[in-house]
Structure formats: structure tokens, C-alpha cells
């Protein structure tokens, strides 16, 4: 009973911000809408569509191409590229944005080089929608790459062989078999890219591109109109929901497509210029998306090394404290929900658990609004009710922030927790029960030790995600709680690339951890 009530309460808490944001759809403010329609929305919609479609098509092109190359062919260093091409995931988009604009900037390394070879007029302006497409493509193509590569590895070869036995060459097999069969995976990757692109706040604000997330931020912090922010958030959340429903549908299709058992993997060896071209293609993507930005960051970090003072360690301390607290909170709640879902096998419970992981689809900027509005309401109510003298109770405390992280990253923690729990079979649970273990004793003696690996993964993933998170941190942090991400944002909005590099290097290094986890996991699965 207690477990049931806890799950009800947690689900309600986690879904509250969504309800708040969505409810402003039902109470549109005509005055605000007139303003939005006239001055804000046309630009936002144009930018968002351009950004979304551009990023989508380029990531699919790049991701699928690289996945096919590394999955089906052998060429110099192919095995290294296979995992190294995931590395760009380690760089937060806002870091990549400022490094790329620094590189392309007047006086930047790339522009100087271009000027020397008389190439300058061809370089695009980074602080534009085109620049944002460029940055997002480099940052997000690994999603498509990873999923498409897994699809090609697990079924590409067997499907091609079946095709060959029916008279299709390998090249025809790619277009007629491998590509259509991998479609659900590619679509899933593409939708993920689209969701991340829409949710991105840091990169677009650094590149001066107005999108829904930056508009929400400006409405709140420049115009001080929480109402406008809510109205904008409700549009964005609608788009996000549509994407999420599509993603769920695609996920279903993926289950059916996975009929073939994994066959022995066999990569065709490329020779001569083809081999060199393949290596060069992989190397240049890796260089542009990861190596050059990282080197540039290190150079800048070295130039600003005198910043490595107590203030810097303060940012690190804040980041680590927040991330640890959030990770523990998220994984604790995830454990409760996952365990509850198993103990109470009812349709509405599993629906509630599913609903509580909706937050992953909701952009951070939207969530910040969705959390802040009810908390402010609660504060006002309490102050009025008890005639208190302070102006805020929960507003501007860590509680708000942690709550927002919980909603945003519950899915990140829930997924590995649930799959770890699946490893504890119902019979093992029954065996322990028949030996007299119940309740918390059962969980602590059987589940937690058996789930250790999965829980650790969950903790790590949430830790890193929170550390890299920007919009929620920026909008809901208590006064003085500047983190590494906030510091980067503030320095870059003043164009101080060097000062931003020092905290960014640390974030990239931390960001390597989940990338390592993913590549380690997927390469283990396929070998």
C-alpha cells in the first residue's frame, strides 16, 4: 500500500510541470498571442523549421553513411573509427558552438588559414541558422550513426547474403534491403536528433539564433513575462509530444524488424584508393567534430590558465554537488518506480511509470517554466496563508532545481535501472521470499547487489547529463550557484572564448564517460 501511494505521489509530482505547461494552452492570453503572432512567431517558426530540417537531413546522411562504411567494410583503422566516431557526443552542443564560432571567427584559426589561401569568402558565418545546422549536425550525427550501425551489424550481412542468393549484388542489396530494413533504427536516431535540436538552448543562444527555447528564456528573464514564457513553452511541448509519439511508434516497428539472428560478421576489405578514401572520410569527420575542437579548447584553456583559481574550483564544486545529488535522487526514484512496477503488475501502474519518464522529451527551458510556475504559486499561497514575512520559501532553492532535474532525467536513470531489474528473475525473487526475505530486506539483499552494474550506469549517466545541462541550471539556480555550464554560458555570451575553454575542457572529459559506456556496451554486444 505504501509502495502504491508512493508511486502515485511521485508520478503526480513528476507529471505536474507538464500539466502546468499544457494547461496554458487552454488559457491563452489574447494580448500575448497577438504580440507573439505579430513579432515573434514568424521568425521562430522559420528558424526552427530550417534548423530542424537541415540538421535532420545532414545527420541522417552523415550518420547512415558512416555507419554503413564502418559496419560493412574493412579499411585502415576502421576498428578505431568505429568507436571514435561516437566521441563527438562527449562535447555539449554549447561548447561545440562556441569552439566552432571561435574557429570561424575573425581572427579565428580557420578564418586566418582561409584568408592565407584566398578562400575566405566561401566560409559561412557561424552565428546564423546555417551555422547552427552545422554545429548540431556535428554534435548529433552520432545518434543516427550508433543506431544505424547496430542495425547494419545485426542484420545487414545476413540480409545481404539472402539477397545475393536471390540474385542481388551487394550494392543493390544496400538500397533494396539493408536500408529499408534499418529504417526503423534510422528513424529513431533521426527523431532523437530532432528532439535534441528542438530542446537545445545553449548552442542557439551562443550562435544568436532565435528559437523557441531562447524565446522562452528572453520572455522570462528579459521581459519578465512568465506568461509569455508559458505560452511559448506550451507550443514547444506540443511539438515535442508529437515527436515522442512518433518515436514510440517507430520503436514498435523496430521490435518486429529484429527477426534475424546475429550472423557471423564479415566485412569486405577495401583496397587501393577506396580504402584510403574511406579512412579519410572517417578521419575528416572525426577531426572536424572532435579533434580540432578539443585541441582548440586545450589551447584556449592553456592561454587562460591563470583562471585556475579558487573561483574555478567553486564552479567545479557546485557542478559536482548538484550532479551527485541529482543522480542519487533520480536513481532512487527510478529504483522505486521500477520495483513498484514489478511488484504491482497492473496496467495503470505501468502507464504511470511510463508517463513519469515523459520528461526526457521536454526541453529543459520548458521544464524550468513548468516547475517554477507551481512553486511560485505554492510560495504565494503559503505566505498569504500563514502571513509570513519572507518573499520566497521554495523559490530560488536547490529543491526547485533538483525537482526539475528529476523530471528531465528520470528516463535516463529509469532505463538502465529497469533493464538491470529484469536480470533479477521473478523466480530468484520467489526463492528469497520463500527463505524469509521481504520488503526492504529483500531489495537490499537480492535486488541491489544483483543490479549493482545497472545502477552504477544509471548514476553515471544522470551525473554527466546534469553536469552538462544548461537551461534548467541557468533558469532555476539559487543565487550564486554558478556551475561550470553556467560559467561557460556567461563567458561565451560575452565572446570570451578563452575564459570559457577552461570549464569546457573539464565537461568534455566528464562527457567521455557515457560515450565510453555506450561504445563499450554496443561493441561487447556485437562481438
Amino acid at each position, binding site marked *: 500500500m505504501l509502495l502504491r501511494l508512493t508511486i502515485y505521489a511521485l508520478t503526480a509530482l513528476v507529471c505536474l510541470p507538464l500539466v502546468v505547461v499544457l494547461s496554458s494552452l487552454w488559457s491563452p492570453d489574447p494580448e500575448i498571442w497577438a504580440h507573439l503572432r505579430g513579432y515573434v512567431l514568424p521568425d521562430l517558426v522559420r528558424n526552427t523549421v530550417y534548423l530542424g530540417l537541415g540538421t535532420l537531413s545532414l545527420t541522417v546522411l552523415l550518420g547512415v553513411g558512416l555507419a554503413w562504411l564502418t559496419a560493412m567494410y574493412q579499411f585502415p583503422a576502421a576498428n578505431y573509427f568505429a568507436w571514435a566516431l561516437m566521441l563527438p557526443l562527449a562535447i555539449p552542443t554549447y561548447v561545440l558552438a562556441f569552439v566552432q564560432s571561435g574557429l570561424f571567427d575573425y581572427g579565428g584559426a580557420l578564418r586566418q588559414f582561409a584568408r592565407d589561401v584566398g578562400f575566405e569568402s566561401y566560409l559561412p558565418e557561424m552565428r546564423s541558422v546555417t551555422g547552427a545546422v552545422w554545429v548540431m549536425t556535428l554534435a548529433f550525427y552520432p545518434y543516427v550513426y550508433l543506431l544505424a550501425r547496430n542495425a547494419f551489424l545485426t542484420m545487414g550481412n*545476413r540480409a545481404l547474403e*539472402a539477397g*545475393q542468393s*536471390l*540474385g542481388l549484388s551487394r550494392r543493390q542489396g544496400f538500397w533494396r534491403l539493408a536500408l529499408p530494413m534499418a529504417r526503423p533504427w534510422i528513424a529513431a536516431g533521426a527523431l532523437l536528433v530532432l528532439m535534441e535540436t528542438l530542446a537545445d538552448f545553449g548552442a542557439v543562444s551562443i550562435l544568436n539564433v532565435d528559437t523557441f527555447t531562447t524565446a522562452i528564456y528572453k520572455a522570462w528573464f528579459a521581459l519578465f513575462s512568465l506568461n509569455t514564457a508559458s505560452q511559448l513553452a506550451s507550443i514547444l511541448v506540443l511539438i515535442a509530444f508529437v515527436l515522442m509519439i512518433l518515436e514510440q511508434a517507430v520503436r514498435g516497428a523496430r521490435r518486429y*524488424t*529484429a*527477426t*534475424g539472428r546475429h550472423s557471423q560478421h*564479415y566485412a569486405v576489405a577495401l583496397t587501393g584508393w577506396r580504402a584510403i578514401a574511406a579512412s579519410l572520410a572517417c578521419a575528416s569527420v572525426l577531426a572536424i567534430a572532435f579533434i580540432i575542437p578539443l585541441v582548440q579548447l586545450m589551447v584556449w584553456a592553456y592561454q587562460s590558465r591563470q583562471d585556475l583559481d579558487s573561483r574555478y574550483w567553486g564552479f567545479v564544486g557546485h557542478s559536482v554537488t548538484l550532479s551527485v545529488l541529482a543522480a542519487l535522487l533520480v536513481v532512487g526514484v527510478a529504483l522505486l518506480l521500477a520495483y513498484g512496477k514489478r511488484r504491482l503488475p497492473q496496467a495503470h501502474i505501468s502507464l504511470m511509470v511510463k508517463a513519469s519518464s515523459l520528461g526526457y522529451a521536454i526541453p529543459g527551458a520548458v521544464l524550468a517554466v513548468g516547475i517554477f510556475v507551481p512553486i511560485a504559486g505554492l510560495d504565494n499561497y503559503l505566505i498569504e496563508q500563514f502571513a509570513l514575512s519572507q518573499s520566497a520559501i521554495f523559490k530560488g532553492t536547490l529543491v526547485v532545481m533538483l525537482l526539475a532535474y528529476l523530471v528531465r532525467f528520470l528516463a535516463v536513470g529509469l532505463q538502465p535501472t529497469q533493464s538491470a531489474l529484469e536480470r533479477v528473475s521473478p523466480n530468484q525473487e520467489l526463492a528469497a521470499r520463500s527463505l524469509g526475505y521481504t520488503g526492504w530486506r529483500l531489495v537490499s539483499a537480492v535486488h541491489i547487489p544483483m543490479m549493482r552494474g545497472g545502477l552504477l550506469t544509471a548514476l553515471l549517466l544522470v551525473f554527466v547529463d546534469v553536469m552538462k545541462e544548461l537551461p534548467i541550471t541557468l533558469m532555476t539556480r539559487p543565487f550564486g550557484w554558478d556551475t561550470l555550464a553556467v560559467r561557460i554560458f556567461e563567458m561565451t555570451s560575452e565572446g570570451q572564448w578563452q575564459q570559457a575553454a577552461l570549464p569546457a575542457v573539464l565537461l568534455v572529459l566528464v562527457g567521455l564517460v557515457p560515450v565510453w559506456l555506450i561504445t563499450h556496451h554496443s561493441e561487447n554486444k556485437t562481438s
Partner: protein
Amino acid sequence: MSILLSVDNISIAYQQQTVVKQLSFELEQGQIACLLGASGCGKTSVLRAIAGFEPIQTGQISLQQQLLSQPKQSIPAHQRRCGMVFQDYALFPHLTVAQNIAFGLQQWPAKQRQARVAELVSLVKLEAFVEQYPHQLSGGQQQRVALARALAPKPLLLLLDEPFSNLDAELRESLGLEVRALLKAENTTAILVTHDQHEAFAMADYVGVMYNGQIEQWASPYELYHQPSSRHIAQFIGEGVLVAGKRCQEDGSITLELGEIGVDVCACDAGEEVEVLIRPDDIIHDDDSLVQAKVLAKAFRGAEFLYTLELSSGTKVLSLVPSHHNHQLGEMIGIKLALDHTVAFAKMHI
């Protein structure tokens, strides 16, 4: 009849490790052959080499006098006209049953293609499922789609890689007979790879027993069971025990060391110690027999019991006995030897 497929002296190696060693066999038009062996014996590699998925290091493979494979040179798989049924069927999940079957018929005129698909659909009895997707079918139905898809382009040779291993035992047997009838009806030449001898016996005209990358014996199922060419095959195929015997110096007949039932069984030319294969059906239960054996173990098989018996000499033999003779463990029962022909191997001296 002319030779359709000739596999001549082929070797296959992966990274220094040779899995198939100088293997040869030939197949005539319309024959169904089976490569039988435990997992890892190289049988699937042979199949994949014929299909064109593996290069060969020595020898050559030819089909209808056309050279398909030789070291460092081979015709690509898609130009070989070898159909293949994969162990996991490898159906295309994004295509319906009809589209799967039609997949290899892209070059055919639309009318003929439709007619061929309809013909195969009715041949494998899937008329009701043409518009369904593979994941909506049962294992046996998927198997049939895979077979129909491979047969559709009228391949010169059909290759089946453990086609029934994902099905349950009952379905395996009935489908095996069905598939054989189907292949014979289409006059298709086929090679089947399996580790299940019952499957091999049910399907094949000829069986090649593979061991360690080589074919130990190439023969009909009947021959294989009754005239195994080696000790290994005698033990691998069917049930039975090897019983020690001795050849007489004078007339070459064999005296079996079966305790009291030692009988002269056949005439041979030289005198030495041998071992004779005794199948369970070579030992007959006879209550009147003076020879008594102790029941050590019994396994009920419905119509029969398979008894493990111990003779007074300590030799153990197997005997198939009609199941109404239900004896207890430890009981003594009368038996006699009824050998039609003798399979004997020189005794191994260890």
C-alpha cells in the same frame, strides 16, 4: 544422368585455421544430398563456399560444367543461381509473404512473376497468408516462406543450412518429409546441412558424414546405417555397441566374445582381433533362449523398450524389445543374436 555439381578437393580456412580439408563430392541433377556432422565439423562452411559466401584455398567448385570457385577467383554469389534457405530464415521483415517470395523475380515479366508466386504459395500451402508480414507467422510458416522464396527463381541448386533446427521435434519430422516431396516435385537438386541424423535420413538420397573438415563416408542412409565405413561412423549413426571378437585362424570366421552367445558369424580371410557392431535390433528377446542377460537400464520408447543388458561375461549390449515385455531392472531375460550381416573393424590397440 549428368553431374550437376562437382566439389573437387576444396579447402577452407579462416585465419590460419583450416576448417575444411580437401573435400570432394559430386551431385547429379535432382538428387538431394546431406552433409551431416556435429557442430564445428565444417559442414556449413562447405555450404557457404558453394553459395559463394566463402573463398576457397584449394580445389574448385563447378556447377553445370561452369567453374564457380577456385582459389583467389570466384563468381559473385548473386550470379551463381544457388538458392539458399538460412538457418534463421533471414526473411525480410519489411516485406509481406508474397513480396518476400517475389524478391528474386525482379527480372521476370510481371505476369509470370505473379503466376510463379501464386504457384509457390499454393505449393507451400500459405494461400491465406500472402499479405501477412513474417513476424505474424509461426516458425513452421516462416520456414515455408523461406523455402518458397529460395525456390521461386528456379535455382540450379538449393542449399539448406540447418533448415529445421529452430522448429520443435514434431514439426521437424513432418516438415522434413514435406520438403523432400516438394523438392522432388520441382526436380530440384539440393544440399542440406544438419547435425540431426533423423533429419538427414528423412530428407536425403545421399548423406556425407563430416568429421574434422572431411567427408568420412558418402552413402545412402541405408548403407550408412548398415555398412558404416569406420568405427567413428558406426558409433555416430544410430545406436549400437562394439563387441570384441576373434577371427579363427582356419576358416576366418569370427567368434564373438558375447559370453554364452558367441556365434560364428561370417567368413573372413585373415586371423586377428576385431570388434563387431551390434545394433539394438540385432539382439532379439526370446524367453525360451538359454542365454540369459541382466537388465541394467531401460528406456521406454512407446512401441519398444530399449534395454541395456549385461551378459555373464560382463559385455554390455543394447536390445530393442516390444514394449509389452516389461521387465524390471536386475531381472534376467533370455536373448539371442540375429545378425544379418557383419560390420567388423580391426581392434584398436591402445
